[in-house]
């Protein structure tokens, strides 16, 4: 406890110094006034011992405290490079066409836009290795990209990095029916894997709204959580092995397919969640659970947040092993979805409730599981925990319930500008933040709260017709400080990317970030700076 307080003191003083300096720099959007920048650079160099960010950038909707500059030690592309890549990959896999580049330079939220001039589509690990070896020798910065569905600007270039897109590597290599171990290339789209496994009688241990576009390599690199984490656990538990290409072109084969292997340090865990900063994941070996026949889903309404929490406790106890998802939405989120999306209707039209909970159970015995769920729902209703609810009678109703929950991000996008925060907080405190933000923002914007209540993960979104710095000021850094105060995580599952590149100190102590292991990783990854140099994870590696 003492240690934490000490480091947080240090952090706070550092932060206030930085904020004072950087707020003056933000006036000079195009960084013309080198002198003022220089002084802040000096300050930052002095902070290097704490593993501080080494560059500043300006982007459209940034807050005063995040400015990143292109590192001048990286080269720029020339025609020799293009010819080399064309010779290596063939004409079709080297894209310089402006329209296509426009798409891959922009993230899903249309919030971050890079200016890359080159998109490469390797089809094998060997090609990826050769690309990275070459870029390393030429000191060309690179950004790995999969489905480009990330929400923190980590999947698009910050400046003119070469985009290495893994989408062409989409083969399923093998599947063992007895153990359920799937080995596939990193560019496989999650939904395709789910369909493939469906035919075999298995399912993927993770499921998210972006499954139609996101790729497994990206999921692994960001340690994606998703809707079923409460049942199947995180990717750290389900990924049995992976193959990655390091920044210098070396291929690290950790593609084990063993459930248990205690021979030495388990390096793959460093890659899971490293957001591509240690290397590009090219193959994944994942343990898939069997598909169970009985899936039931209930859509419930609660009057207040404490009932939601009690319901969670009861669900874990009474539904136990069959609980497979526990999600919540508040009334704002529900209204937004009903308003913005087509073909969605309110399962509980009688009145608008304060909170909606979606519970899914998965088990092997239909009648037994249904009875269990009905008994649980009955007792919760009698106990006053839920005020109303619906049990899906068939697969159409079930998918319509999921459509509501999975459609919230899409509805937010359609409603205009959205400031997205993904926080892990102690369950009892979670909704207090939403209430606080509502008071803070007042009429400026709408605050929407939803998320994986079962995992203590809140997706806090602030929706406004347009982006406005006045709104941003009220949100940041208040949200981060609030989270930090409760020892929460400022990024539960979305990762750091560009958006939260230098926010890591809100959730990790300075010592953790500058732990000597990080230096060792740098040595292993050699010129680690070449891969995603301006994104959050790399900036921690000095």
């Amino acid at each position, binding site marked *: 406890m003492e240690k934490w307080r000490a480091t947080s003191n240090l952090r706070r003083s550092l932060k206030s110094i930085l904020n004072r300096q950087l707020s003056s720099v933000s006036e000079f959007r195009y960084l013309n006034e080198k002198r003022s920048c220089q002084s802040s650079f000096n300050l930052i160099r002095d902070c290097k011992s704490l593993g501080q960010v080494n560059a500043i950038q300006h982007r459209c909707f940034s807050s005063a405290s995040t400015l990143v500059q292109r590192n001048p030690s990286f080269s720029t592309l020339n025609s020799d490079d293009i010819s080399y890549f064309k010779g290596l990959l063939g004409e079709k896999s080297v894209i310089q066409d402006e329209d296509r580049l426009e798409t891959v330079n922009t993230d899903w939220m249309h919030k971050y836009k890079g200016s890359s001039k080159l998109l490469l589509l390797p089809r094998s690990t060997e090609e990826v290795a050769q690309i990275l070896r070459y870029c390393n020798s030429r000191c060309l910065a690179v950004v790995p990209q999969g489905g480009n569905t990330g929400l923190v600007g980590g999947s698009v270039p910050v400046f003119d990095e070469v985009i290495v897109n893994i989408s062409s590597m989409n083969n399923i290599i093998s599947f063992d029916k007895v153990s359920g171990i799937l080995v596939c290339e990193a560019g496989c789209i999650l939904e395709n894997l789910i369909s493939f496994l469906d035919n075999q009688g298995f399912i993927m241990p993770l499921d998210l709204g972006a499954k139609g576009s996101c790729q497994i390599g990206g999921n692994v690199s960001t340690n994606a959580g998703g809707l079923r984490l409460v049942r199947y656990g995180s990717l750290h538990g389900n990924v049995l092995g992976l193959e990655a290409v390091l920044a210098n072109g070396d291929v690290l084969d950790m593609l084990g397919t063993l459930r248990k292997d205690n021979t030495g340090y388990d390096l793959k865990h460093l890659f899971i969640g490293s957001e591509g900063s240690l290397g590009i994941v090219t193959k994944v070996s994942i343990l898939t659970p069997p598909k169970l026949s009985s899936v039931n889903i209930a*859509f419930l309404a609660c009057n207040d947040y404490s009932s939601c929490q009690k319901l969670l406790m009861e669900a874990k106890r009474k539904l136990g092993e069959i609980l497979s998802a526990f999600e919540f939405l508040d009334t704002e989120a529900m209204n937004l979805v009903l308003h913005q999306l087509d073909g969605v*209707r309110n399962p509980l039209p009688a009145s608008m409730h304060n909170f909606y909970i979606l519970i899914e159970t998965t088990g092997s015995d239909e009648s037994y599981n249904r009875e269990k769920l009905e008994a649980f729902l009955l007792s919760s209703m009698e106990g006053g925990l839920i005020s109303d609810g*619906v049990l899906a009678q068939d697969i159409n109703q079930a998918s319509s319930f999921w459509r509501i929950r999975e459609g919230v991000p899409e509805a937010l996008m359609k409603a205009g500008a959205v400031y997205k925060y993904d926080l892990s907080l102690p369950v009892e405190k979670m909704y207090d933040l939403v209430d606080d933000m509502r008071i803070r923002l007042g009429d400026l914007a709408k605050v929407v709260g939803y998320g994986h209540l079962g995992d203590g993960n809140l997706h806090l979104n602030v929706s406004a017709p347009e982006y406005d710095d006045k709104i941003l000021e009220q949100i940041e850094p208040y949200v981060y400080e609030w989270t930090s105060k409760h020892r929460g995580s400022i990024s539960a599952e979305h990762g750091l990317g560009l958006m939260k590149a230098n926010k890591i100190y809100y959730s990790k102590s300075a010592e953790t970030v500058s732990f000597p292991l990080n230096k060792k990783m740098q040595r292993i990854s050699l010129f680690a700076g070449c891969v995603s140099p301006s994104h959050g994870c790399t900036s921690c590696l000095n």
Partner: protein
Amino acid sequence: MSMNPFCEIALEEALKIKESGLAKEVVAVTMGPSNCVDTLRTGLAMGADRGIHVEAARDLVPLSVAKVLKKLVEVENPGLLILGKQAIDDDCNQTGQMIAALLGWPQGTFASKVVLDKEKQVATVDREVDGGLETLCLDLPAVITTDLRLNQPRYATLPNIMKAKSKPIKRYTPEELNVEIKSDLEVVQVTEPPKRKAGVILSSVDELIDKLKNEAHVI
């Protein structure tokens, strides 16, 4: 086991009619093995007042179903019979029409809109036909079969699911109703439609013309 989607729409329409005060009671009927009762419970949870389960082995053909329904109509004396236009397991689209003929009742099939007039004892039905919409006026009692666009079935809410547990379900067997379940039809063969062949990407207009002329023989 889940309810045939068109029958769900029929049940929803029946419930709407009852809620508007034009009917006293909604009775849901199912025919089949014992696990069909689950479907009946769903119907009761949606709001039906009573259920009737006619226990019979699987593989009922529409004519048998129509005959059983005729007997039940004689017992229950409903003012209106609403069914889904077809079942999604056999896609026959015959039961509604057959029972109307057996009973000598007027029929309004593929209904996309139903308006009842209690005083005049008529039902005005908009039917979805190939050429568009046809409006019929039927004297009650009548048979109506429902199409997709008639309504959107409600969800079964928890309080109603709980109430449904105590609603009565009466069991019959075909023998009790003096109906012989036999099939005059024999399934001879079931084949999948031919798999769609992959398209061919051509590189020039000349090649296209050549293929259309020599391979497809369309020009």
